[in-house]
């Protein structure tokens, strides 16, 4: 097996594991299919926007939950709702699911529960960031070796 095939094999295996472990779902695959020679960096660009969004929203949630005078759960929920939306749009399934759980604690106005969920969301976000970075690096290596990125359905 030459280097391109090896890298492609690695890519396929890694992609498959991402789906199997629930890091990404079919929506992510949909976005990958939207990438072409006219928009070769589409996925990286959307994912970057998503991670920026994540950081901003996580900070909002943390600040809102820190309020000693009384937590504005509506505000927390608004941020969680936004994060749930964008994670769903890019197929970040575990982040999205963490948001779903988070919302019930917001509704219950349970500060402890919310703080745990915030930890969970932050954890899932950083896991995903690492995973996708690895995926994108593999893609770059394949392209640099003159190969094409396999489509994994």
């Amino acid at each position, binding site marked *: 097996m030459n280097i391109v095939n090896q890298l492609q094999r690695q890519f396929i295996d890694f992609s498959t594991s991402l789906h199997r472990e629930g890091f990404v779902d079919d929506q992510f695959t949909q976005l990958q299919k*939207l990438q072409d020679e006219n928009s070769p960096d589409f996925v990286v660009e959307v994912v970057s926007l998503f991670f920026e969004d994540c950081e901003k929203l996580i900070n909002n949630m943390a600040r809102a939950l820190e309020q000693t005078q009384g937590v504005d759960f509506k505000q927390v929920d608004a941020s969680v709702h936004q994060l749930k939306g964008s994670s*769903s*749009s890019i197929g970040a*399934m575990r982040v999205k699911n963490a948001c779903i759980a988070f919302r019930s604690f917001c509704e219950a106005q349970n500060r402890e529960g919310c703080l745990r969920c915030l930890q969970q969301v932050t954890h899932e976000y950083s896991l995903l960031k690492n995973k996708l970075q690895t995926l994108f690096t593999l893609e770059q290596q394949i392209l640099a070796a003159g190969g094409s990125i396999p489509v994994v359905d």
Partner: protein
Amino acid sequence: MAMNGGVTWRRTEKIDGFNFSPTDTAEEVHVLAVDDSLVDRKVIERLLRISSCKVTAVDSGIRALQFLGLDEEKNNDGFNDLKVDLIITDYCMPGMTGYELLKKVKESSVFREIPVVIMSSENVLARIDRCLEEGAEAFIVKPVKLSDVKRIKDYTTREFRAGEGEEKERSRKGINKRKLRDSFDDLSPSPSPSPPSILFPSPSPSPTPPQSQSPSPSLASAPSSPSPLDSPTRRLKMTISE
């Protein structure tokens, strides 16, 4: 002749039924996309561009109205010289919701015939009903997929072609039923197939644009505010579950 912005030509071209000229760039469908989420805007923009649409993306209902020339400052209804062919908007937005934007568009004599599609991450029947009854062309449950956009584009451009009634109704019915049936399967937790991603109002006999009194293009027989049982989507659901 009604003012239909960029789609008037399709009516007159329909001599043999399918006369698309090869150079359609001047007649490219122009979509105004409205969403406060930057991520979603980027995705919808890409979905539309890949479907050969020209896209203008804005981040709020207010900006959408400004773009159309419908904002409060100018007191005229303006012209649709930007030739917007379709508006696709998120429902949940700070300030003006997608529903409020829909109403404003439908209240305008110039813009009311532009199809408006609502997107929402929440699959709430009452919300869907409300939008369809207010004249929304379709309701898409997020995340939006390429197939949703293709269907919308197809649906809104075909609507203005007379004489396709039956085939269109059959395909629309098919879409409704399939998507609603899927919603029952989605009651189980993941990994499940996607929930109904797109809902259209039930087909009306003649595909003419809504008149000023705008009879609700739905199954509900009562023109006044229907009870939950009479809501268009609920009645469809009940029919399927038999």
